[in-house]
């Protein structure tokens, strides 16, 4: 009985802690939300309050009416889904062989891949431009998809390999004795067991594509080709022009689809990002 009381008290303390922590974490975002809902048009104000004194939805209306945000959403969606499919389509077989097979070059390649993260990529854009331009891939979605897929490929490979490592090999051996081909093993046995890591890799790719604006701004021209992040970037107020509250509203709007995916994937993510044993 005493133990139960103790645990209830403990849980209450933890719950209170998390409620406070979530609030503290969200303060900057609540700030943006409040700015976007405030009719008194300013990013900065002397007496800020989280609940706007003059409530308005005009900024959100402006985002949807004055800006082609649905078109940006469509562009982002197309890019995200294509990048996702190619990332997984190339990443899963690669992660599988790096996890399961031994072959010359395997270890050096794995080590080298992670060291590539040490490169300061501030100048990479020019190089990629020189690579993609002769192929006519500048100003095409395909060009961006290739850049995004390549950028996320190392993470996808390492992350899924790590998870595959934890799946007991015996299950596959059993299938092999039954005469299953390697492709069948991956498709029918490893993939279902690795659903969580696939979901999380997908998540990472999605976040990256959703938030990436530097390539999207520089490799694409014309506002009809903008992704959400690039569109948001173009709405950013400068000293000469722009409107902070609309920008704040747009930031909130852009983050909502990702949040929905976060929540939907939560169940998978808990066992997904790294290892997690085989509970399937």
């Amino acid at each position: 009985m005493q133990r139960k009381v103790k645990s209830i008290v403990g849980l209450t303390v933890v719950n209170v802690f998390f409620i406070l922590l979530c609030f503290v974490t969200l303060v900057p975002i609540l700030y943006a939300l409040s700015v976007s809902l405030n009719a008194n048009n300013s990013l900065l104000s002397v007496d800020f309050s989280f609940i706007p004194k003059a409530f308005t939805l005009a900024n959100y209306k402006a985002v949807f009416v004055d800006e082609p945000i649905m078109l940006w959403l469509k562009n982002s969606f197309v890019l995200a889904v294509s990048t996702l499919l190619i990332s997984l389509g190339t990443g899963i077989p690669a992660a599988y062989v790096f996890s399961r097979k031994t072959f010359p070059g395997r270890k050096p390649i794995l080590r080298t891949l992670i060291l590539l993260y040490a490169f300061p990529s501030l100048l990479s854009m020019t190089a990629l431009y020189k690579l993609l331009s002769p192929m006519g891939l500048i100003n095409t979605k395909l060009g961006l998809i290739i850049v995004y897929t390549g950028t996320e490929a190392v993470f996808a490979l390492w992350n899924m390999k790590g998870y595959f490592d934890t799946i007991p090999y015996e299950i596959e051996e059993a299938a092999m004795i039954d005469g299953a081909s390697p492709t069948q093993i991956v498709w029918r046995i490893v993939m279902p067991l690795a659903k969580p890591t696939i979901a999380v890799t997908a998540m990472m790719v999605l976040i990256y594509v959703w938030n990436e604006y530097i390539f999207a701004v520089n490799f694409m021209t014309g506002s009809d080709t903008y992704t959400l992040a690039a569109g948001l970037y173009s709405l950013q107020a400068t000293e000469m022009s722009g409107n902070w509250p609309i920008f704040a509203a747009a930031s909130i709007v852009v983050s909502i689809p990702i949040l929905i995916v976060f929540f939907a994937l939560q169940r998978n993510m808990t066992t997904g990002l790294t290892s997690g044993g085989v509970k399937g």
Partner: protein
Amino acid sequence: MKESKRQQILRCYAWAAPSLLLILMIVIFPILYTGYISLTNMNVYHWTNYTFIGLKNYADALLVFDNGFLKALGMTVVWTIVSMVLQLVVAFVLASLLNIKGLKLKNLYKTLLIFPWAMPGYVSILLWKTGMFNSQFGLLNQWMAKIGHGPVRWLNGDMSAFWCCTLVNLWLALPFMITIIDGALQSIDRSFYESAVLDGANWLERTFYITVPMIKPIIGPSVVITVFTTFKQFDVVYLLTQQVGAKTGADIHTIMTYAYENAFITNNYGYSSAVSIIIFVMLILFSVVINMKPKEVRD
């Protein structure tokens, strides 16, 4: 039999080829290209007609690497260590708390805690800079005023600016860390703990003898990647304190903001490329020195 072995190897490479090809194009090609440009005099005055000038850019770059550079390097190392320790400890504690049995709202808390992930970084940094730290209008100073304290210039002094940058970086990085540590914690077999409890191990002992060693290999690669990105961090420090026209008076530079102000703004691509390659090599050496390599789970 020998033939079949070779076939097997070929098949392994065939499976990995599409992924490796993409990495080759998008990640390795820029590095090679940067290496090549670093040996030329490509700059504003020789934009298309650049020629091969050997190692001159490297000589120039090393000459410019003076006290300011060493200071930035020292600061970058401190910054990386502080940030990583904070990230790992805080994320570990939070992930452990999230895994307490009976926490019903776990998924809601987690979604809210990883919200910072859902916005492009520059938007978040801007929100912090103008919304929180601004000395005239920022929320922090409005709160300070409420408790009767005068305005504080958060980003002005070196020390306070450093901690502000660390805080923002922590805020940006925690979602990723919490997620991977939380995932790693799930993979530990509960039976280990049960027997440890029977042996009379307390929470601290369990943490250090079971939890930490168990999750280490799993989170290894992600931690290595995070160390690299923290070391190369540019946005947080630059946008909070060093942006032209919005400098705050704090003299804090990471190796990247220093390289930016002392090389990249010259529009001299040959020279900037040499600086990039030098930083690349230094970072790899750094990782070798502290013997940082992801553990292979199955060798």
